[in-house]
């Protein structure tokens, strides 16, 4: 097995044994990037020198006796996460040459843990999208079939992990943006509880649902990365002072008696036969493992997409106001201040960013705020209360991650609304701030499918336990694309 094909757990064992070095690992990943990224286009920036430098530092720390954790493990970060001294673009022309002046908290934590940053991955511009087609620098291609999308908005991160370009990747999940690429690329995608991990240094999209998330090859690895990035941050007032336990300690606990809820509304007519079949198999597997399946109902879940697509553009319109050609980023000359704003933003933002800014500006404008934004927030309350209530009857909720497998690049060019509908299963967990994980559960004509488990707030442990048992007893996650 090539070193870049290892999981974090396997790599840490070999590093601790002294059989390999962090520099070896970094080189293996960098070689793999050179080998396949021309086809996949997962990366916007590769920081080779910095990576080798950090790998050497990790090896020195190990030589002094430090072990375990993520010391020496190579990773890639989504390009809407600030990495000091390294170009951070949000896949937008408006930040094409922006160099981040400081590290996001999650990056700082990973540095402290000794993880090695290899580069920055492609995304939908400012995380607006579910396919990575909205990148101003071209789409990323699904490693399983390069004519297809890798999912989004953390498509670069998903594709990079699936292609073994790194041992894990960071993404951000606002309305499915870590879980969707995980499902389409056949890897594990974790969206932690809102506030579990700091948003400081993440370019804000929807501040009330954004979270940094992890893309890994296994559920076991997801627990290791969450361990490093979780925790209260004084720079992010939305991170509660909630203790970070040991996510790996009881991960292999059996799941006998675990109550799993299946929302009837999600298993209705619209589900594709391949997804239905895969979910049936998954359900049977969980029963084999000792879990109890219970039918539950989420009557307001059908409003999740319209709620999200009012709240998100509204918060986006506010968060993107800072890109004005004054402090940083693209600046187009104008006669006066207004012209600088109009032209810089007009030329710097892509189509989807503009669409969302426009929607949000409209929804929040005088006379419309009550009808749109306020109503959406109230329906959000109903959705949240319903999911929270269900999670007092069951331990976790099981759904498909996506209604279909990956689709052809360009499928939704003419109709952005149709793409929004792909988010139907992933949005409720975002609106309610709950942890959710996507795990490979099958294939549809050779393309990966994912199942989603949603847990109660701060109950990532149950997601990890259920996922771990599932992966011990299935081998979907071991299959790799041939690029």
């Amino acid at each position, binding site marked *: 097995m090539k070193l870049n094909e290892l999981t974090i757990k396997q790599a840490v064992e070999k590093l601790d044994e002294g059989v390999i070095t962090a520099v070896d690992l970094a080189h293996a990943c960098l070689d793999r990037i050179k080998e396949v990224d021309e086809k996949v286009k997962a990366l916007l920036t590769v920081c080779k020198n910095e990576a080798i430098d950090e790998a050497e530092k990790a090896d020195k720390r190990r030589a002094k006796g430090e072990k375990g954790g993520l010391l020496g493990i190579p990773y890639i970060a989504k390009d809407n996460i600030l990495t*000091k*001294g390294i170009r951070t673009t949000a896949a937008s022309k408006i930040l094409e040459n922006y160099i981040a*002046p*400081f590290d996001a908290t999650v990056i700082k934590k990973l540095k402290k843990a000794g993880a090695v940053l290899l580069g920055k991955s492609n995304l939908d511009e400012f995380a607006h999208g579910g396919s990575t087609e909205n990148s101003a620098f071209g789409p990323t291609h699904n490693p399983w079939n390069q004519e297809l999308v890798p999912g989004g908005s953390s498509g670069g991160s998903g594709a990079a992990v699936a292609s073994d370009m790194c041992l894990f990747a960071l993404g951000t999940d606002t309305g499915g943006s870590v879980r969707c690429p995980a499902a389409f690329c056949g890897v594990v995608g974790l969206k932690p509880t*809102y*506030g579990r991990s700091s948003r400081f240094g993440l370019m804000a999209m929807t501040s*009330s649902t954004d979270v940094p998330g992890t893309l890994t090859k296994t559920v076991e690895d997801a627990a290791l990365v969450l361990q490093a990035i979780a925790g209260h941050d*004084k720079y992010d*007032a*939305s991170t*509660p002072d909630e203790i970070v336990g040991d996510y790996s300690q009881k991960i292999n606990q059996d799941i006998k008696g675990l109550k799993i809820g299946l929302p009837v509304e999600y298993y209705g007519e619209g589900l594709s036969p391949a997804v239905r079949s895969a979910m049936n198999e998954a359900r049977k597997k969980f029963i084999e493992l000792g879990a109890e399946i219970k039918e539950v109902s989420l009557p*307001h879940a059908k*409003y999740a997409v*319209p*709620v999200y*697509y009012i709240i998100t553009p509204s918060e986006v319109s506010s968060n993107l*106001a800072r890109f*004005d050609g*004054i*402090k*940083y*980023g693209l*600046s187009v000359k*104008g006669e*006066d*201040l*207004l012209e*600088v*704003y*109009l032209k810089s*933003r*007009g*030329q710097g933002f892509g189509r989807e960013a*503009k*669409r969302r*800014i*426009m*929607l949000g*500006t*409209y929804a929040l*404008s005088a006379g419309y705020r009550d*009808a*749109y934004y*306020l*109503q*959406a*927030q*109230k*329906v*959000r*309350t*109903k959705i*949240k209360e319903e999911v929270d209530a269900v999670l007092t009857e069951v331990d976790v909720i099981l759904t498909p991650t996506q209604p279909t497998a990956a689709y052809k690049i360009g499928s939704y060019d003419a*109709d*952005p*609304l149709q793409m*929004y509908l792909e988010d139907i299963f992933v949005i409720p967990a975002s*609106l*309610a*701030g709950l942890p959710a994980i996507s795990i490979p559960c099958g294939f549809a004509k050779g393309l990966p499918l994912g199942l989603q488990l949603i847990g109660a707030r701060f109950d990532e442990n149950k997601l990890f336990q259920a996922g771990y048992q599932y992966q011990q007893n299935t081998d979907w996650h071991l299959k790799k694309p041939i690029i």
Partner: protein
Amino acid sequence: MLTKKDVKKVAQLARLELTEEEVSVLTPQLSNILGFIGQLKEVDTTGVEPTAQVTGLSDVWRADEYENWDKAEIAAALKQAPAGLEGNQIKVKKVLEQD
């Protein structure tokens, strides 16, 4: 639902300069999306409080002390100001008109 005039007005509020082509493409798309979102009117939300954030936190305080930002980071940040600096201040076009 939305007219091109509405779209141009919103674009101005959002400080986005759009080409005529963009306005033509955006108008039906935005109308479509708003139409789709209209289904939220069906939901009875009497007595329901809006959810602005899910943490349940409020009044997260810190001591009223300042921390100096690292000088090198300040320099790196300021260096990227497109119109340049005057001392440690970012240059901006005239905001107030003189009569």
